[in-house]
């Protein structure tokens, strides 16, 4: 049975720690890692006509930048440790998209870093961790 750990990675120190934690776990249990980077996006946001015309170009640039600056160095780091690694780069609502990736990859668990939002802002906007805890189809580990 394939056992994959999805790591929600945004480049922040907390997500670095989550990835390190995932590497140790993966090594110990012979698991693989999927580094998932989600670009926050809503199809219901409002754009100006000029942004509409440039959207396709920008999307291409954003994906290239994320691939090169965020994912590639991490892949190298995981491979160094001898752990099998793939990546997932998607647009969407962060928690929902992580759940989607976990389903399609048939993952064993999801790991994310703690964002450290407290009180008001997470009450208003909701937090990725909070949403994941409620909707994830697999166990979720939140690394502080």
């Amino acid at each position, binding site marked *: 049975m394939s056992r994959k750990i999805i790591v929600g990675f945004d480049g922040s120190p907390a997500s670095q720690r989550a990835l390190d934690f995932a590497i140790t776990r993966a090594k110990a249990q012979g698991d693989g890692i999927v580094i998932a980077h989600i670009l926050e996006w809503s*199809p219901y946001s*409002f*754009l100006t*006509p*000029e942004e*509409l*015309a440039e*959207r396709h*170009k920008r999307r291409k640039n*954003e994906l290239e930048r994320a691939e090169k600056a965020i994912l590639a160095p991490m892949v190298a780091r995981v491979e160094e440790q001898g752990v099998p690694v793939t990546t997932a780069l998607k647009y969407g609502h962060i928690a929902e998209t992580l759940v989607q990736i976990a389903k399609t990859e048939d993952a064993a668990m999801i790991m994310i870093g703690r964002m450290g939002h407290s009180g008001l802002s997470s009450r208003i906007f909701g937090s990725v961790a909070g949403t994941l805890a409620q909707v994830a189809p697999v166990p979720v580990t939140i690394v502080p």
Partner: protein
Amino acid sequence: MTLRAAQLLFAAIALTIAGTAPTLAQGFEEQFDTYFGHATGWFVNIIFYSFDIGGISIPWIVGWLVIGATIFTIYFGFIQFRMVSHAIALVKGDYSDPNDAGEVSHFQALATALSGTVGLGNIAGVAVAVGIGGPGATFWMIVAGLLGMASKFTECTLGVKYRNEYEDGTVSGGPMYYMTKGFAERGLPGGKFLGIMFAIFCILGSWGGGNMFQSNQAHAQIANVMGSFGIESFPGWITGLIFAVIVFLVIIGGLKSIAQVTEKVVPFMGILYVGTAVVIILMNYDMIGTAFSQIFAGAFTETGIVGGAIGALIQGFRRAAFSNEAGVGSAAIAHSAVRTKEPVTEGFVSLLEPFIDTVVICTMTALVIIITGQLVSDPETGLFVLNEAGDAIKTVDGSSGVELTSAAFSSNFSWFRYLLVIAVVLFAFSTMISWSYYGLKAWTYLFGEGQTKEIIYKLLFCFFAFLGATIQLGSVLDFSDAAIFAMAIPNIIALYCLLPIVRKDMNSYISRLRSGEIKKFV
């Protein structure tokens, strides 16, 4: 580049301020008005040439738009009624591939196109229609809105189908591209000629109706509110300068945040406007029945207005056409950026636009004016009473246009007049941003892409934004209105010529949808 552009703009503004200095201004303005009127009057007369039937004048361009919309409606078998639920499913994203997330969605294309059309037409134009044509005008406005959905469907499908996609991934689309490429595909002559004609009118329209007219009307509203605070004759050049600077920052300075804020606030204002209207209608629920019977009676029978039922029809058709721009071709530019493999899907989505703009928002304005009893009628005969000039229905406080809308809404909520000013200014601004883009696309179609060329267009755009609020020139405003409607001449000719292409795509799509080949992703 930007710095030089800024210097140029301020030089231009400084020159204009000097040119419109009070002492010189009066004489200069009048001279300019006369000169400009002589130079462009013939054009305005052609576009708004009216036939006189039984004492009522019917502008031929309104007939041109409505007849076009009727033909498209019949040709596509009442597509606007058959595909509404599918259009809503498309906007919700039911048929969007999740792997395309991050690309322009149907919702975004629709929202952007709407923010370009929802504006003064919905607030002031409707009040003019109801003020002159009576409640019956509302009925014909709705009919014209429903027919206009077929025009939008046709032009937006073609807009996506024949857009240019460049190597770097940006897109340019609009009537000028389907004129050139679509005509070539069908082996028809004259596509290039129509495209150039359309592009010229589009540039003039973008400076005029999409810009000068907007800042002019926004200033009229601001000056009015300033007047109620005791500041008489608030100078137009202040409004003009503010508009010009903000537009400059957005379209040349690349300050996206202002445009983004506007794009977010405008839909909210639209919802607030309709919401308030609904609340006012519900507060006067005992009048709803009367209002609708007035609307139906006025549409077909004599109610004392100028021109009777025909007068109501003309006013309704005219304002609907002015408000939703169906057949003008502007929407085809806005919709063409959507990411889809099926151009016809964007056509379906775009047919919601006249529905929201005219059938929902315009009707709300009309209902509030009728329900709050702004129009004076004779209690004995039940006929409407005309004002002293005899050209419109007498209103309770003698107001007309945007003032009438303001009075109607304020009769229940006195604070609404201030909200309305904010709404008018924001709607005007978002319309200007949209039209600056439409005009730019026409400009680059004529002169080619290139930073210097684009900057020249944009600087001129800022200058006209300033001019629009500063001067009160009837001839300039007439001309700018005429230019927007002139766009409909080449556009509707092109739509007639390309109808078979749209029908082929539409039938192919609908049959694949029915057979289950096209599936929902959710």
